């Protein structure tokens, strides 16, 4: 496989939600691609369509028009499904409260018939350690963990199948700044270790600046600006980018300028 070929390619994707009288145009013609091993950040405000886009990549939402190619093949075939996994925003909501952590992490391995018995148990233990949890944590239930630890469990489940593409939908938005730093560090370690390609959704341009190689800014279902993250941040063109920059500057201690434009 040529390294230059994109692992994920989205072509003119459109997603419209039902109400026939007043349909909601969530994604209105988005094209983008991610090279193997790179991290693309999608930044936008709530309602800009970034989560819908992520869900379409994971086949949780049916596109109205356009196509999504994974490694050159149209998504939808079973063999492709296990090559991409997702980490959701709310770590509490994405874990089954009645299941022990060990069984939560085993599930994808069982569903795809990858391991069973002793081998399965060993793999789960390795996964727990990979995300910084203890072997004994497997016997606990999700409510016994803090938000950051729950997100570690969700990450362990996502990397269980050794996916090539990881889709992270605001994985740190529900966390404290100090926990956010730990989870971002964990994700970047795993990225190096497992050679992951990541689609990273966020509303925080500073987090994307830290974590991603490329960035695409979404506004009202369209991409309004994209490029290498340093270029976009040092030379923002679109007013939405500038507004999101201002939001970061308002929170920054290093900056003397106050935010100049508000929404």
């Amino acid at each position, binding site marked *: 496989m040529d390294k230059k070929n994109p692992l994920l390619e989205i072509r003119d994707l459109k997603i419209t939600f039902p109400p026939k009288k007043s349909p909601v145009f969530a994604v209105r013609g988005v094209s983008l691609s991610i090279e193997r091993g790179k991290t693309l950040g999608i930044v936008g405000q*709530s309602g800009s369509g970034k989560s819908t886009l992520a869900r379409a990549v994971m086949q949780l939402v049916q596109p109205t028009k356009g196509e999504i190619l994974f490694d050159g093949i149209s998504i939808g075939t079973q063999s492709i499904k296990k090559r991409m996994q997702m980490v959701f925003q709310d770590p509490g909501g994405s874990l089954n409260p009645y299941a022990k952590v060990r069984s939560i992490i085993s599930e994808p391995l069982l569903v795809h018939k990858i391991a069973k018995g002793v081998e399965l148990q060993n793999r789960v233990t390795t996964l727990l350690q990979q995300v910084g949890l203890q072997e004994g944590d497997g016997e606990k239930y999700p409510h016994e963990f803090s938000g950051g630890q729950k997100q570690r469990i969700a990450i362990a489940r996502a990397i269980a199948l050794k996916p090539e593409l990881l889709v992270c939908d605001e994985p740190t938005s529900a966390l404290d700044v100090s926990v956010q*730093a730990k989870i971002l560090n964990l994700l970047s370690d795993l990225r190096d270790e497992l050679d992951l390609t990541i689609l990273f959704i966020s*509303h925080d*341009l500073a987090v994307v600046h*830290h974590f991603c190689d490329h960035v695409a800014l979404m506004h009202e279902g369209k991409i309004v600006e994209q490029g290498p993250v340093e270029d976009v941040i040092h030379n923002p063109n679109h007013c939405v980018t500038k507004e*999101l920059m*201002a939001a970061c500057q308002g929170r920054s201690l290093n900056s003397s300028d106050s935010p100049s434009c508000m*929404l």
Partner: protein
Amino acid sequence: MLDVKNLRITFGNQIAVDGIDFSIEQGGSLAIVGESGSGKSVTALSILGLLPNNARVSGEILFEEYNISTLSSAQMQQLRGKKIAIVFQEPMTSLNPVFSIGEQIMETLLAHENLTRQEAKQKTLLALEEVGIPKERFKSYPHEFSGGMRQRVVIAIALACTPDLLIADEPTTALDASTSLQIIELLNQLQRNRNMAIIFITHDLCLVPSIAEHVCVMRSGKIVEKGKTSTVLEKPTHPYTTALTACVPSIYKKYKRLPTI
């Protein structure tokens, strides 16, 4: 106006707040910053007398002429919403999904002030205007609003009876970056107009300069550093304060790894 002395809160053997002192004057602003589990929200709930029954509180909370720790729950109910109000983190769960937002603002007014329904409605319309929601939305339900607009409704409810002290417990954590700045701007403006005191609780030290003159940094139930916001942020004396600011990603600097605590 609010004076907290040697406050200690325990749940069984667990010490949530371990002897803290702070005070705030009329019209002042104070931020309480810390990680989850540092005891900041429990502190806020204790000022409102909203702690669960298994909490044991010692120390003093003096608010205006009242000693909050000695008030009965009926007396506390009269104070809450009238003199002290709170804005919670999650705007969806703090609103009732089956009542229109207008009804919910009126409920507070009718509970605390001697008004007819007609007068309460007039006041509600003014309150909506003040937080930037069009009057026509009086009959709308919470699910018809975005997160930022819902938080404006929660603020309107909190401010309906012109409280002397507003406690904002992570009011922007559930919101996206640009909406969160708008809400902070709104709180600032309302605080100035009404000469109201505000306690702002957050885990994000970087938000503090835009809202509070004074700051307390909490860790494991203790205040590790307090003072004027500008002094604390420019010359932090406790390593924990430095660590809290360093772990936030910035658009100016790029690290290979983020420093953690």
